[in-house]
């Protein structure tokens, strides 16, 4: 079946299988920042923004996304670089596999929560698992980023 998707602000018509997940479709279409992690909807590595809200692309049928706008790291370079700088400075990037999903979730959090507390930040980001850092460096980096962009 053919579907219309807006991927990183570009309109595309894509041929998909009815049971294909958005993750697979995005990676086939060049969005390799979207990571194939747990494949069970648990880790957040496959996070993308669908109409500005974070979703797990491994658990979202591509057919369901028809007509919607999808943003991946490839489509948000400037913002990604801003947030990543803080993560790097605080030692929050080790293997780096979780970073694309994490950064997109932070972008969504910025829009949704006004001046979030540390508890609100960690709660919002709890769906982005990181096996390397232990999260403290992520939290420090994101707090600094939010503080300094004020």
């Amino acid at each position, binding site marked *: *079946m053919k579907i219309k998707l807006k991927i990183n602000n570009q309109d595309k018509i894509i041929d998909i*299988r*009815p*049971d294909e*997940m958005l993750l697979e479709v995005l990676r086939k279409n060049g969005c390799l920042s979207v990571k194939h992690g747990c*494949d*069970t*909807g*648990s880790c*957040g590595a496959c*996070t993308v923004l*669908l109409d500005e*809200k*974070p*979703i*797990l692309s*491994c*658990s*979202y*049928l591509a*057919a*369901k996304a*028809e007509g919607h706008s999808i943003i991946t790291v490839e489509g948000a370079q400037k913002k990604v670089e801003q947030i990543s700088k803080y993560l790097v400075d605080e030692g929050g990037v080790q293997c780096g596999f979780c970073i694309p999903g994490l950064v997109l*979730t932070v972008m*969504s959090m910025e829009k949704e929560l006004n001046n979030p507390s540390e508890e609100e930040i960690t*709660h*919002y*980001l*709890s*769906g*982005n*698992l990181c096996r390397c850092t232990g999260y403290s460096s992520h939290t420090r980096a994101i707090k600094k980023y939010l503080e300094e962009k004020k």
Partner: protein
Amino acid sequence: MIIDEYKKPQTIEEAYSILTTKKNSQIIGGGAYLRLSKKHISSAIDLSNLKLDFISETDDYIEIGAMTTLRELEINEITKKYFNGIISNSIRNIVGVQLRNIATTGGAISGKFGFSDLITALSVLDCKVILYKAGAVKLVDFINQKYNDIVEKIIIRKNNQIADFQAIRNTKTDYAILNVAVSKHTNNSYKIAVGARPGIAIFAVKAEGFLKTVDSSKENAEKAGLIASQEIKFTSNFRASAEYRQELCKVLVSRAICNINK
């Protein structure tokens, strides 16, 4: 999981027609758990075009559309306002924001998953499921019977119940090892539901009966927790043993009752 065709009907009549005429067709809700299924679905029916994503209130009821996401349920001012925010509280630790932006209320209820936090929380409220053909059905009847129908919305009577939700997880975003919801009516009667046993929520009827006859002291809350843990059947799975769940039940039931009576 295999899907032969994907349908996005424009009307609920059309959706119902596909559901009832095509063998192995299925309403997919948010589709969040489809990936983990081994089903072969002939027609996956997506209700996104039917305007079923809403939360509203009338004088007597809160109404929640079947396509309302769990994230909307979590942050909506109406769901946070009533019953001590039990609906919002029960949902806030389900995996992460990303999954809650996908999973829908209708899907969470129709899935009848044993680990469901939402079903446990709604069980202690006066909640009905509105089906397209069968009409209004009590949540408990919906859970225990099979319907080849479409969930349009759920309605919850605004009856001044006080409620509390408790759950224990191995990690913050894992599914519950055990979840408990307790509500207290204005006539001092209680409803106690225990879920993720790992089976779906059931009522602790003896503990409810005990609480009717005693005052609301901490000691009686602990006794009710003990009674609940003895009357409910627990089993073991990879998250926890039956014995551990039984111990947790005592504490969570007691804690929920104490919170209500604070």
